[in-house]
């Protein structure tokens, strides 16, 4: 009885507390689950789970035949030991000077028997051939380090060019700063267009245009990052505090003055944070786009991979891991301290 009268009173007052789970929410959840089941079948999620389970059991020491475990074993076996030294055939070094060897380097002579046909007797005769190698004990490490530095330089310049390009794009694609409807639409289209092409794809074409090397890498990174920064910077400008802008407009300051003295000081810290994030991300991407020939460590990786020099590949992978880890830590520390 009490319940009925309570419900009645609520109806009279016209107040109804929102239900915890509304029908609409329930329908959305059911649709999402259905979508996941359907797409999961297409990308073979069930097989992925089974294979991973097998591999984990094999790793735990159970006697299970696992395709994945065999694959991993094979990779690990060919990547290690890592390549550290660099051996170069002396006959292939131009203008080699025996008296002035590079630091820590020594010459190794390898003699081996070669069967060769004697054209006079037409019989096979054994010859001893000696090949001299210049061995630099950490030569390959130094080479990889140089390539890493090149990768960092590509990322840095890609980011710098992106920042320069994104500033005008952002101003015109922010609805509160743009000049008119057309500049707004053009800038928006440009920003989306720049972001629509992944770096790997644009690098592929830029390599055709500019040739192998870092130029293609720098431009590929710059194009994508400019779109990315332009979009986020424009959103920041649109969401910046309007009250100080109004205060300056009210005393007759023009658009440019309001931009420089009310909007920019407000959004600058956020913009710097985005730019740092993009730099961080570009370092990682720069390693990848080298694979299509756009310079840096990726190009070295691709070359070694194609020549089946898997121990070199191992060195490169470890070097990339170390670099990304160090930069991640550095960026996190910088962000904590300054932003």
């Amino acid at each position: 009885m009490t319940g009925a009268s309570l419900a009645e009173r609520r109806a009279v007052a016209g107040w109804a507390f929102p239900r915890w789970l509304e029908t609409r929410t329930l329908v959305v959840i059911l649709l999402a689950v259905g979508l996941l089941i359907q797409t999961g079948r297409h990308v073979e999620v069930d097989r992925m789970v089974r294979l991973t389970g097998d591999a984990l059991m094999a790793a735990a020491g159970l006697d299970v035949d696992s395709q994945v475990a065999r694959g991993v074993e094979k990779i690990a076996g060919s990547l290690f030991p890592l390549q550290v030294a660099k051996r170069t055939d002396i006959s292939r070094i131009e203008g080699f000077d025996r008296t002035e060897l590079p630091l820590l380097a020594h010459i190794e002579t390898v003699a081996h028997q070669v069967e060769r046909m004697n054209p006079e007797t037409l019989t096979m005769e054994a010859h001893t051939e000696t090949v001299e190698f210049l061995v630099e004990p950490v030569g390959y490490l130094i080479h990889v380090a140089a390539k890493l530095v090149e990768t960092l330089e590509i990322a840095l310049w890609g980011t710098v060019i992106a920042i320069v390009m994104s500033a005008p794009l952002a101003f015109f694609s922010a609805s509160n700063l743009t000049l008119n409807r057309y500049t707004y639409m053009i800038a928006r289209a440009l920003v989306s267009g720049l972001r629509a092409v992944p770096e790997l794809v644009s690098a592929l074409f830029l390599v055709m245009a500019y040739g192998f090397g870092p130029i293609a890498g720098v431009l590929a990174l710059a194009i994508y990052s400019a779109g990315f920064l332009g979009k986020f910077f424009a959103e920041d400008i649109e969401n910046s505090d309007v009250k100080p802008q109004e205060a300056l407009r009210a005393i007759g300051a023009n658009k440019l003055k309001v931009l420089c003295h009310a909007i920019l000081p407000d959004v600058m810290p956020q913009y710097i944070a985005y730019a740092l994030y993009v730099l961080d991300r570009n370092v990682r991407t720069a390693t990848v786009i080298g694979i299509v020939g756009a310079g840096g460590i990726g190009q070295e990786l691709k070359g070694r991979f194609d020549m089946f020099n898997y121990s070199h590949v191992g060195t490169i992978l470890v070097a990339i891991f170390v670099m990304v880890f160090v930069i991640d830590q550095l960026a996190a520390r910088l962000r904590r301290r300054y932003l």
Partner: protein
Amino acid sequence: MSFDAVVFAGIGKTFADGTQALNDVSFTVAAGEFCVILGPSGSGKSTLLRTVNGLAVPDAGCIVLSGEALTPITLPRLRRRVAMIYQQFALVNRASVAHNVIAGALPATPTLRAVLGLFGAKDKQKACDLLAAVGLAPEHLTRRVSELSGGQQQRVGIARAFMADPTAILADEPVASLDPRTSRDIMTLLRREARERGATVLCSLHQLDLAMEFADRIVALRNGEAIFNGPPSAFTASVETRIYAVDKARAS
């Protein structure tokens, strides 16, 4: 020292959603007066102030500043001598105090110099003088505004307002977010500086006691209509009752 006289003649304003903010408001603020616009929330105080510098455009009526009517043509010139002080301070929180104050000199600075941040030595000196006058210390100059207390932020807001040598100041609830004691300090400061530097003040308030203490003239608004206009001495208890009377039609 050239105080502006401000004449409101039949000001009406209806917002796009149909709310009538102002209805036929007419009164005159003499040059040099400290006029308090009194009224409860939603009575149209802010809208009335914002019509003076063009932040709100009235649908009806006309505003005259020292004999010059406010039109779209005269507005860009006239608004330069009308400064505004805001309830939420409207300062750039991440910028320094120095930057915020000198921003008040922007309208008179050539655009290129303004963009590059090259303000004249005179402006810089004036900013320092003003900050000293509003009671801040030299070490506040480089401090970010967000690090200051509410009272200090409003002092920065007042210093910025006086940068452009205004002849009229609109103060929109300047002390609404401050404690009673700081409120009184800020009101004293505003009144003193306005008098010394030659600015007529239009100040909206909802605190009756502050209005009685600081105003030369009180204009009371209720539902967008001016229902009182006169000196504090004429402001009686019956007027107060009328301002804050529960509007039967609205509450139901």
